[in-house]
């Protein structure tokens, strides 16, 4: 969709301007991109497991132990966040 011009070396990076045809990234840019990517990612990872998910898995586990069919939906209004646009799993109530 967003077609852009050929990549250019960043002015702040100590990188030679890339030749027009080949895409050549300096190690600095790769490192920066990697750092940003991991920072963004780990920011979410560090939030741990929201209650919503531990509750769901707990219920699934209990249902299994109780001998209930594994495929039975466990979605229930008290633990499963409301689905405004579509029910992606299980009945809402």
């Amino acid at each position, binding site marked *: 969709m967003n077609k852009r011009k050929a990549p250019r070396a960043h002015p702040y990076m100590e990188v030679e301007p890339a030749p027009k045809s080949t895409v050549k*990234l300096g190690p600095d*840019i790769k490192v920066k*991109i990697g750092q940003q990517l991991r920072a963004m*990612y780990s920011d979410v*990872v560090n939030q741990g*497991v929201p209650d919503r998910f531990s509750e769901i898995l707990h219920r699934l586990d209990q249902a299994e132990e109780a001998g209930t069919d594994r495929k039975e939906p466990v979605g229930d209004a008290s633990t499963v966040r409301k689905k405004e646009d579509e029910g992606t799993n299980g009945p809402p109530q």
Partner: protein
Amino acid sequence: MAPPNKPVRDVMLAAVPSLRAFAISLCGNVDRADDLVQEALLRAWANLDSFEPGTNMSAWLFTILRNLFRSEYRKRRREVEDADGSYAEALTSLPDQASHLEMDEFRKALEQLPTDQRESLILVGASGFSYEEAAQICGCAVGTIKSRVNRARSRLAAILSIESADDFGPDHETRAAVGNATAGWRRS
């Protein structure tokens, strides 16, 4: 049959934070990402029989989530344009405004990547999967993943430097000082 549910549950729980991070980077919307993770967990649980014991459960869960995202994505394309606000909710622990802004720019650039490239880059560059595992998750050849990751990096570098010459700049002052000089460069 006595399936070891406790360990399975624990393994799934342990994978949740990373699954969320992956889902958020894929769809750029926290609520939608959480729904995606939930659906992936339910689906995985319902299909535990098809999981091969001894293999990487995390990769298996990522595969399920990725496929769910793909099928959902096809259905409702870019229906959710509200990515900004809800994504910002997820970014709570950034130390200061500057890095928050920088992260925001980066995230926007990431969103401009084709899905193929974005998911490959995230799996390899952030989730910590090997090229082989990423290839398995995406159902393609290892070489394909490698080239997607390379293209994703180039594209990101291009987007960031073209759209905002001050990205990755040392700080605001330097940015202001060289602002005029880069204005002409940007247009070239």
